[in-house]
C-alpha cells in the first residue's frame, strides 16, 4: 500500500472513534399533534431523546416499553467499535492489501449484522403487541423503518444515520476507495516497493 493509502486507512479507522461519543442512528417521528417532532437517538450504549413520550404513545397500540437494559447490544457495542478501529489501524500499520481487505470485510460484516439486528428488533417491536392494548387494528404492524420513511398510523417516521452513522459510512467509503485504488496497482510493483 502506498503511504497515502495507509494514512487514509488510519484516518478512516480513527474517525470511527466518534461513534463512542455521538449518536449513531436516529428515528424522527412527526404527527399532527407533534409538529415539532419526537426523536429517538441511538448511541452505542443507550437511547436518548423523547423516549418517555414515545413509550407513552405506543402503549395505546400495545407496543413494548423501550428501556436501555432491553438491549444486550448496548453492553458490547463499544468493543465492536474498538475492534473496528483497532483492526483498521492494524491494517494501516501492516500496509498490505490483504490486511486492508480483511478490515473491509469486517466492516461490511459489522454493518450487515447491525442492520439485521436493528431490523429484527424493529420487527419484534412492531409485531409483538400486547393483546390487551386499547387500540388494535387488524393486520396493522408498527415496525419502524430500517432506512427512510414510513407512515405508522398518525405518525410519519423517518429513520436515518446520525453523526456516528454518517462517519461510519464515510469510513467505509474511504476504505472501499483505498482498496480499489490499491487493487489497480500492479502487484509486482507494489511488492518490489514494499
Amino acid at each position, binding site marked *: 500500500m502506498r503511504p497515502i493509502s495507509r494514512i487514509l486507512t488510519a484516518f478512516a479507522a480513527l474517525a470511527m472513534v466518534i461513534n463512542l461519543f455521538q449518536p449513531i442512528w436516529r428515528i424522527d417521528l412527526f404527527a399532527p399533534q407533534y409538529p415539532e417532532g419526537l426523536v429517538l437517538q441511538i448511541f452505542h450504549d443507550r437511547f436518548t431523546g423523547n423516549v*418517555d*413520550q414515545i*413509550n*407513552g404513545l405506543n*402503549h*395505546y397500540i400495545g407496543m*413494548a*416499553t423501550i428501556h436501555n437494559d432491553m438491549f444486550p447490544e448496548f453492553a458490547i457495542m463499544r468493543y465492536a467499535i474498538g475492534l473496528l478501529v483497532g483492526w483498521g489501524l492494524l491494517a494501516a500499520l501492516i500496509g498490505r492489501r490483504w490486511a486492508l481487505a480483511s478490515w473491509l470485510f469486517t466492516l461490511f460484516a459489522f454493518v450487515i449484522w447491525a442492520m439485521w439486528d436493528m431490523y429484527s428488533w424493529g420487527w419484534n417491536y412492531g409485531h409483538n403487541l400486547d393483546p390487551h392494548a*386499547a*387500540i388494535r387494528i387488524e393486520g396493522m404492524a408498527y415496525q419502524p423503518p430500517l432506512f427512510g420513511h414510513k407512515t405508522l398510523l398518525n405518525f410519519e417516521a423517518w429513520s436515518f444515520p446520525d453523526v456516528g452513522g454518517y462517519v461510519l459510512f464515510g469510513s467505509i467509503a474511504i476504505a472501499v476507495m483505498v482498496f480499489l485504488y490499491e487493487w489497480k496497482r500492479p502487484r509486482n510493483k507494489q511488492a518490489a516497493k514494499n
Partner: protein
Amino acid sequence: MKRRPSHSAIPLVITAGLALPLVQGCKPTNTKTAVTGDAASKVYVAPGKYDEFYNFVSGGFSGQMSVYGLPSGRLLRDIPVFSVDPENGWGYSEETKPMLMTTHGFIPWDDSHHVEASMTNGVPDGKFMFINGNNTPRVAMIDLKTFRTASIIEIPNSAGNHSSPFITPNSEYLVAGTRFSVPMGTDAQRDVPIDSYKENFRSTISFVKPDTAAGTMAIAFQIKTPAVDFDLAHAGKGPSDGWFFFSTYNTEKAHDLLEVNASQRDKDFIMAVNWKKAEQYAKEGKGKMIDGKHYMNHYDESTHMASSKVVDQVLQLDPAELTDLLYFMPCPKSPHGCDVDPTGEFIVGSGKLAATLPVFSFAKMQKAIADKSFEGDYDGIPVLKYESVLQGEVKKPGLGPLHTEFDNNGFAYSSMFVSSEIVKWNVKTLEVVDRVPTYYSIGHLCVPGGDSQKPWGKYVIAYNKITKDRYLPTGPELTQSAQLYSIDGPKMELLLDFPTTGEPHYAQALPADLVKGNSKKFFKIEDNKHPYATKGEKEAKVVREGNKVHVYMTCIRSHFAPDNIEGVKMGDEVYFHVTNLEQDWDVPHGFAIKGAPTAELLIMPGETQTLKWVPQSVGVKPFYCTDFCSALHQEMQGYIRVSPAGSTVPLTANTKSADAGL
C-alpha cells in the same frame, strides 16, 4: 283653459326622495366607515403564526387579568387572580384557597383595574405583571413563566386600592394608594360618625417591595396623608427617579353626594412623594409601627401549594412629623391619569372635568420647592404655586381627559372619555396633532411600553366603557371592547375592534420575544415537593386518618390510579390528591366528582392538586377526567363507594396499573 292634472307633485316627491339621503349625510359619519385602507392585512395573523405583542389587560369587575395577542386581538388566556375560577379550581382546590385569604376571611372576588409590568432600568423586563384588587385592598404579582398568580398581598389601612400598583424604574417599590379616606386606629377610633370626616378620616399610600427572585411581596412602609381620595399614580424616572406622583380628588373632603360635592374646587392636587426620602426615614427608624393586620399569600411552585402569612403591624411615616416628604401641585378638576413622559421630565395630569391638560415640569417643581414657591398649605402639606410648576397646558384637547400614554417619538396619546376620542399631542410643543374617535367612551389606553422610559410604540389600544352597537347584540348585557389603532404614521388609524372579558381598565403590552421564550411547558415530576405527591402508580394508595381519607391518586393517559375506592363512610372528608404524571407539553388532566359543591381540578403535567369532597349521600359515585387528554379520555373514569356511617367496609383501593411499564 283646459284644466290639466298638475304634475308638480311628482317633482316634489322626487325632490323629497333625493333630500332624504342628503339629510342623512349631515348626520355624524357612520362608525362603520371609520376603517380605511388595508387594516385587515395589518391585524391578520395567519393560523399557526404568533402575535407580535402580548397584551395584559385588567379584567375590571371580573377580578382577573386577561392576555390577548396583538395585533390580532385574540384572547390567549384569562389568568385567575382575585376571583375564583371553577374552570381550573383556582380558589377551590386546597392548594389555591390560601391565595384568596384576607383579614375579612376568604374573598372569592375583586375588582382589578391596573396592570403594571416589572421594570429593569425603566423598561419592562417581561418577568412579572402586577395588578390591583380595588374592593378588598390587595395587590397581586403574576409570574410570566407560568402565567399564574404567584403572590397576593393585602393592603392594611386602605379602603379601596385604586391608586395601584404603579412601579418604580427598577421595581424597587410598587404603590398602593387608598381611594377612600377612612378612620384608622383602635375600634373606638374607627367607630366615628361619618360626618366627622374632616377630623377623623385619613388616607394612606403603601410602598410594597416586590422580591422578584422569590416572587413575593412585603409592605416596606406606609405614608399617612391628609384625607384625599387617590385615583392613579406613576413613578418618576430618569431625572425624576426617586419621586412618585399621585392624582387626587375630593380635596373638598365631601363624604356624601361626591358627584357634586367633590367637584366644587377648581383644582384638586397631584401629590408628589419623595420616596427616596421616605425610604431613608424608614431606614432611620423614623416611622412608627402601627396596627395594620394584613395577609401575605404566596403560591410555591415547588410544593404546588399556597400558604398565608399574617402580619399584624406596618411601619407608618407621618408627614406631620417628617418634613420634605409630600408636596401638592394644584391640578384642574379631579385628575384621573397622572402620567410621566419617557424622559421623566413631564408629568401630565388628566382632569376629568377640565378643559385643558396641564403638563407639569419636574425641574420647575424642584425649583419651586427650593424657592418655597408655595401658595399655602393643605392640612400642613405645602401646596406649590400652579404657575411655578406648570410647563404648559394642552389647550382644547377634548372633553373628559382620563389617561395619557407615550410613544417613542415624543408624542402623547390622551383618552377623552366624554368626547370619546384619542388625542395625539406633541409633548414639547403641547400642540394637538391628530385625533380619532373611539367607539365608545374610552377609559384607559395603552401603548406598548407606553409608561416606560423606552416605549415600543407602534399601536395604541383603547379600552372602552360602552360597546352598544359594535357587535351582534346579546341582550342587555353586552361584551366589553377594546380597539386597536396604528400609530406608525402621522395619522392614527383604526385597525380592529376586539371583545374583552370583564371590563378592561389599564393594560400593558410587551413584545412577544420578551416573554415567550421563558414560558414553562410543564413541571418536572422529580421537582414536585407536594407533601401528598404520588410520583408513580406504585405509590398510589388510600390512607385514613380519623374521619379524613387521603387518596394518593395519579393520572396519566388514560386512567386514574386508584380508580375503584371503597370503605369511605358518611361523615368522612375525602381529600383527592391528584398528581399528573405526564411529562409532556399540553397534557393536563381534569378531575371531577359527582355532586362536588366546589369545582373541578385541572392538573398540569408534574403537578399535584387536591379536591376536598364531603360525601352527601350513600352510594357509588363516579369521577372522571374532564380534559380531553387522549383517544381514551372518555374511558378515564372511576368509582368511589360511600357507605353509611359506622359501616365495616374496609378501606381499599385498586392500584393495579393498566400498564406496568408506565
